[in-house]
């Protein structure tokens, strides 16, 4: 899906846990998530911690959408 969306000209960022899958599939902008069943919020942590992580990584995704890149890029997250 991410390739079709980008072919249509939309800037798109994929948030995924299995970065090797995203790179293989061919997404150009990738932001890692923490797991498959809970990509952006570990239920075993507090609501505050989950929010902090989610807010931060979505922010990185927005940065990615605004960033010019030359090649497939996995964007770094702080936490």
């Amino acid at each position: 899906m991410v390739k079709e969306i980008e072919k249509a000209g939309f800037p798109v960022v994929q948030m995924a846990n299995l970065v090797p899958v995203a790179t293989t599939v061919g997404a150009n902008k990738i932001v890692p998530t923490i797991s498959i069943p809970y990509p952006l919020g570990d239920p075993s942590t507090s609501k505050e911690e989950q929010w902090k992580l989610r807010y931060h990584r979505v922010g990185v995704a927005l940065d990615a959408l605004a960033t010019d890149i030359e090649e497939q890029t996995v964007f770094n997250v702080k936490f």
Partner: protein
Amino acid sequence: MKKAILYINQFFAGIGGEDKADHAPEIREGLVGPAMALDGALKNAVVTHTIICGDNFMGSREDEAVEKIMEFLSDKEFDIFFAGPAFQAGRYGNACGVICKAVKERFGVPVISSMHEENPGVDMFKKEVVIFPGGKSAAAMRKDTKKVAAYGDKILAGEKLGNAQEEGYYIRGIRHQVIDKTMEPASKRAMAMLLNKLSGQEYTTELPIPKVERVPIAAPIKEMASAKIAFVTSGGIVPADNPDRIQSASATRWGMYDISAEARLEGNGVYKTIHAGYDPAAADADPNVCVPLDALRAYEKEGRIGSIDSHFYTTVGTGTTEAEAARMAQEMIVHLKEHNVDGIILTST
């Protein structure tokens, strides 16, 4: 007797070289150029017509060329269609691919071509068109023609067709399961392969690693503060009653749901996941872990982004074929365009 039609370019029709590459499409009754060799090689069909078109005409006025040729064919009876051989000629290879694909889609007949392995037409069209490996130049004309004719004869005779390796055409990236009770079990095949690998001897993997396709990078968002962002997900987040009955695996359906009034996706019965490939507990309790609407709303409120699309777009990734995923994305794109979305965050599980 079954009927075949052949497509060739202006050069092989004897009309001219580069100077005549703009030659408009035409159809002639009977055999022109390579059609003679093809007709001679085919046992189960006669070549009734030859279609000729300039490589540049097809290259720069493709839709027009294809429509014209479809018109020529509309009142003809034919059971099989050939194009080329195109050898290493790139524009000719492209033309053969384009016309074969169109004929297959419009008329549903088998389409066959031949190209040298370096012809870009191979990678572009091998999935839709059976293409046989061909020589570098016209010196290989007889040989290449014999190959496509032989395969064509098999199809026309209704014979059982082998796989790509057995028949000899380019691997298309279409893999199917084959049950063979005479084959060695996997344990023995693995053992044999390992012994060969360890001793440096040759072995053949049963799963050749395909090359990965890259899509050109889309231009980044310039004005984030006024940008409209949308969520697309393959994590299967849907309203609790799954109104579009999206499948839990091998999905062919998708949905778009109005979130314009929502600050976040409510769990525990309002939204949930139907994706069968992962443990649903966390996403059911808090769907924002999969589609982070709450976080994006915060950025919207702060003015970091202009707005969020009125809807989010969802389907299920597990087992879903690439072809279905591409189709669903194309359908979503219609709405994303209508909604004037500037950028997309796609979450997957």
